[in-house]
C-alpha cells in the first residue's frame, strides 16, 4: 500500500497536469478564433490599402483657348467639320502655356501625353453641346493620363511601375506645385461604365446590371420559394414524391454554383435561344440557384409559428388554405423576408455561373433594360482584377469595397428587421 501523503501528491501532480492540458486546449481554441478573425482583418486591411486610391481621380485644370483657327473649325454645329476638327491642338497649346520653353515635336508629344486619352473627345462633346463657346477661353478640368495618375498616386509604391520620362515627371511635379494637377474624389467611378482606360472606367454600369439581375432573381425566387415552403410544410402528404422533392432541395442547396451556369448555358441560351450577357438570363440562373435556400429558410420560418395559432383558426371554421394564408403566412413573413435578404446578398456576390452565360463581355454602356447586355458588380471586379493594366487593380479593390458595402448593409438590414419584427411565442 502506498502511504497517503504520496497518493495525495500523485493526485495533485496529475491534477496539475490535467489543468495544464485544460489551459492548453483552451488556448488552442483561442488561437483558432484568432486565426479566423485575423484573416478577416488582413483581408479587409489589404483591400482598403489597395483600393482607397481608386476613389481618387487625377485631374489637370487648364485655361483652354477654344481657338477656331487652331482646331480648323468654324461652325461647331456642322457635323462634317466637327468630325475633321483637331481638338488636341487647343489642349496642347494650353499645356505649352504652362511651359513656354518647350520646343520640338518630340517634347510636344511628351507634353500632350499628360492629359488622358479622352481629353480631346471631351472637348468635342463640350463644343457640340455648347457651340457658343467657340472663340472663348474656358477653364476646363481634364482627367490626367493614366501614367500620370499612377505617378501622382503611387510614386513610392514598389508594386507600381511609373511609365513616365524624367522630363515628364519634372513637368508633373511642377504642375502639382502650381495646383494644375490635383487629385479629387473620383466621381467618374460612379458615373461611367467600363472602359479600356482605368481613369475613365466606372462601376455604374455594373451596379445597374447587378440591380436588374437581382430584381429578376427576387421576383422569381421569392414567390416560388415561399409557395414551395408552404406546400412542403402545410400541405404535402407524407409520401415518396414529397421525400424525393425534399432530397432534391437539400442537394440543390449544396450543388456547386458553376453547375447552375452550365444549366443556364445549355437550357436558357442553348435550348430557348435567349441572348447572352443579359440580366434576364443571369437573374433566371441565380433564381434557380437561390430557390432551394429560400425554401429551406422559409420552412424554418413557418415551423416557428406555434401550432396553437393553427388550431385556433381551424377551431373557428377556417379552411386549411385560410389558416395558412390568413394566419401562418403573415406571422412567418418577417422570418421569410430576413432569410431572403441574406440569400439575395449571397446571390449579389455570385460570379461563377454568370461567367458561363456570357456576362463577362466588355460593356461600356449603362444597361437600360432587362434585355440589354450588362455585366454585374462581382464580374466587373473579376475582369478588372485579371486585367494587365495596373490602374485597374485599385479600381477592382474599390469595386470590392462598394460590393462589400452593399452586402454588409443588406445583412445589417436583415438583422435589424429580425430584431424589430421577431416575435417570441
Amino acid at each position: 500500500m502506498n502511504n497517503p501523503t504520496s497518493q495525495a501528491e500523485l493526485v495533485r501532480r496529475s491534477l496539475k497536469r490535467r489543468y495544464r492540458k485544460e489551459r492548453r486546449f483552451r488556448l488552442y481554441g483561442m488561437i483558432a478564433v484568432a486565426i479566423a478573425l485575423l484573416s478577416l482583418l488582413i483581408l479587409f486591411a489589404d483591400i482598403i490599402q489597395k483600393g482607397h486610391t481608386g476613389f481618387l481621380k487625377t485631374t489637370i485644370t487648364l485655361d483652354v483657348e477654344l481657338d477656331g483657327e487652331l482646331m480648323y473649325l468654324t461652325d461647331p454645329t456642322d457635323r462634317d467639320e466637327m468630325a475633321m476638327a483637331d481638338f488636341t491642338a487647343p489642349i496642347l497649346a494650353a499645356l505649352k502655356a504652362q511651359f513656354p520653353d518647350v520646343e520640338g515635336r518630340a517634347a510636344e508629344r511628351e507634353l500632350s501625353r499628360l492629359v488622358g486619352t479622352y481629353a480631346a473627345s471631351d472637348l468635342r462633346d463640350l463644343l457640340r453641346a455648347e457651340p457658343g463657346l467657340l472663340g472663348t477661353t474656358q477653364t476646363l478640368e481634364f482627367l490626367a493620363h493614366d501614367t500620370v495618375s499612377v505617378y501622382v498616386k503611387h510614386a513610392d509604391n514598389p508594386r507600381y511601375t511609373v511609365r513616365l520620362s524624367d522630363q515628364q515627371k519634372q513637368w508633373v511635379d511642377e504642375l502639382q506645385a502650381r495646383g494644375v494637377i490635383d487629385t479629387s474624389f473620383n466621381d467618374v467611378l460612379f458615373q461611367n461604365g467600363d472602359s479600356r482606360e482605368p481613369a475613365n472606367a466606372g462601376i455604374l454600369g455594373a451596379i445597374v446590371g447587378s440591380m436588374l439581375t437581382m430584381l429578376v432573381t427576387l421576383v422569381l425566387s421569392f414567390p416560388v420559394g415561399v409557395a414551395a415552403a408552404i406546400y412542403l410544410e402545410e400541405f404535402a402528404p407524407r409520401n415518396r414524391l414529397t421525400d424525393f422533392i425534399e432530397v432534391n432541395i437539400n442537394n440543390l442547396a449544396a450543388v456547386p454554383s458553376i453547375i447552375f451556369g452550365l444549366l443556364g448555358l445549355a437550357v436558357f441560351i442553348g435550348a430557348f435561344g435567349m441572348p447572352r450577357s443579359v440580366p434576364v438570363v443571369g437573374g433566371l440562373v441565380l433564381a434557380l440557384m437561390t430557390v432551394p435556400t429560400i425554401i429551406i429558410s422559409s420552412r424554418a420560418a413557418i415551423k416557428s409559428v406555434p401550432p396553437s395559432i393553427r388550431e385556433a383558426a381551424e377551431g373557428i371554421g377556417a379552411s386549411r388554405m385560410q389558416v395558412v394564408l390568413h394566419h401562418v403566412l403573415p406571422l412567418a413573413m418577417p422570418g421569410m423576408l430576413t432569410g431572403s435578404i441574406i440569400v439575395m446578398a449571397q446571390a449579389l456576390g455570385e460570379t461563377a455561373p454568370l461567367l458561363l452565360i456570357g456576362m463577362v463581355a466588355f460593356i461600356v454602356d449603362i444597361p437600360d433594360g432587362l434585355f440589354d447586355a450588362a455585366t454585374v458588380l462581382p464580374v466587373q471586379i473579376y475582369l478588372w482584377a485579371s486585367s494587365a493594366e495596373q490602374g485597374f487593380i485599385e479600381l477592382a479593390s474599390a469595386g470590392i469595397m462598394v460590393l462589400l458595402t452593399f452586402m454588409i448593409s443588406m445583412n445589417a438590414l436583415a438583422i435589424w428587421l429580425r430584431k424589430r419584427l421577431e416575435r417570441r411565442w
Partner: protein
Amino acid sequence: MQTANLLPLVLILAAVAFWLSFQRSRAVAAPLGGVRHLKALPTHYAARAALWSAIPGLVLLGLWAGFEGKVIHSIVMASLPEGMAPDSAGQASLLFTQISNVARGSLNPDLAPEAVVQAAALLENLREQSRVFKTVLVILVTVLGAAFAWFRVAPHVNARNSVETTLRRIFFVCAAVAVLTTMGIVFSVIFETIRFFGRVPITEFLFGTSWSPQTALRPDQVGADGAFGVIPLFTGTLLISVIALLVAVPTGLLSAIYLSEYAGKRARSVIKPLLELLAGIPTVVYGFFAALTVAPFIRDLAESIGLTASSQSALAAGLVMGIMIIPFVSSLSDDVINAVPQSLRDGSLALGATQSETMKKVIFPAALPGIMGGILLAASRAIGETMIVVMAAGLAANLTANPLESVTTVTVQIATLLVGDQEFNSAKTLSAFALGMLLFIVTLILNVIALKVVRKYREQYE
C-alpha cells in the same frame, strides 16, 4: 407589344377581373339577402376570376417568349437558298448574326448578299407578326378567362373549393421546381457528355494522365486531337481541397468548441457575427485576395528560404479557400456539438473530468458522425469552388503533389473552356460538359452521404 409590357398588362387585367367579379358576387347576393347566402365569400369569386385570367395568359406568354426566337430562327434559316445554307453550327450562327444586323439596321444592306437582305426582311416581318399575334392572343386568353369566371359567379357555385385546389396545385408546382432544376442540370450536361464520349473514349477520359484540350485550327495539324485525361485535374482539385480542409477543419472545429464551451456571452455575440461575415464575403473577393496578395507573398517567402514557388501556387489558392470554409465548418460543428444532450456533459463533469476532457472524451466522440458529415459538406464546397481557383490557380494541368507548384482544377477548366466564344461541337467545348457531369456526380455523392450521416446523427439524439 413587348413581353416586358405584356406581363404587367396581364396582371392588371387579372386585377380588373378580381374587382369586377367581387362587385358581381355582391350584386348577385344582394337580392338573396346578403353575402351569407352565397356558397363562398366574394373574395373567393374574385380570386377565382383573377386566377382564371392570369394563369392562361401567363402560361401562353411564357411559352411564346420561350419558343419565339427558336421558331423564327429556324424559319429564317430554312428560307435561305440552297447555296447559302451553312454547313456548320458556327457558320449558321455567324450568318444569323449578319441577318439580324441587317434587320436591325446596324449593317448596311448594300454590303450584304441579296439572300441575306431578303432573309433580313423576312426576319423583320416574322418578328412583327409574332409581336402582333402574341399581343392579341395573350390579351384574348386573359379576357376570355376573366369573362368565363365572371359569368360563373352564382350563389350555388362553391368558388372557394376551386380557388383552394388551384392554389394548392400552384404551390405543388413551385415545390416541384426543385425536381425540375435537378432534371434540367442532368439533361443539360448528359447529352453533350454522351456526344463527348463519342469522340473521346470514356476510359481515356477517366484514366488519362494528360490534359491539353487544344483543338486544331487545321485538320492536319500536329497534335490536333488534344488530350482529355482527367487525372491531373482531379489531383489538382484534390490537392487544393486538401490544403483548404487542413486549414479549415482544425480552425473551424476549435473555434466552434471555444465559442460553445468557453467564450462568454459577450465575446460570443461579437465573434459569431464576424465569423458569419467571413462566410458572406463573395468568392470573387477571396479570389482577388489570393491572386494579388497571398500568392505573391508565398512566392517571395519561398524564394527567401531558397525554394521556387509558382506565382499561381496551389498553396495560395488552398489557404484562402480554407479561410473561406472556416465559418462553414464552425457553424456546422457548432450545431452538432450543441445537439449532444446536456446529460452527457453533466455526467462527465460530475465524475470530475475537466471541461477539455469532457470535450475530448465524451462530446467529441458522440458528435463525431455529425462532424464527419460537416467535413464532407465542406469538402464538396471546396471541390466545387470556382472563383478562387480561376483567379489564383493555374491553367496548366500538372500532375504533382507539390503545393508550391501551379495546378489546375475541374472548375477552372470548365470556366475557361466555356467563357467567351466557343467552337460549337468541338471536343474542347464538349469536354467542359463532361467535366461538369463529373463534378456534379462527385459533389452529389458527397452531399448525399453527408446529409444522410448528419440526419442519422440528429435522429440518434432526438
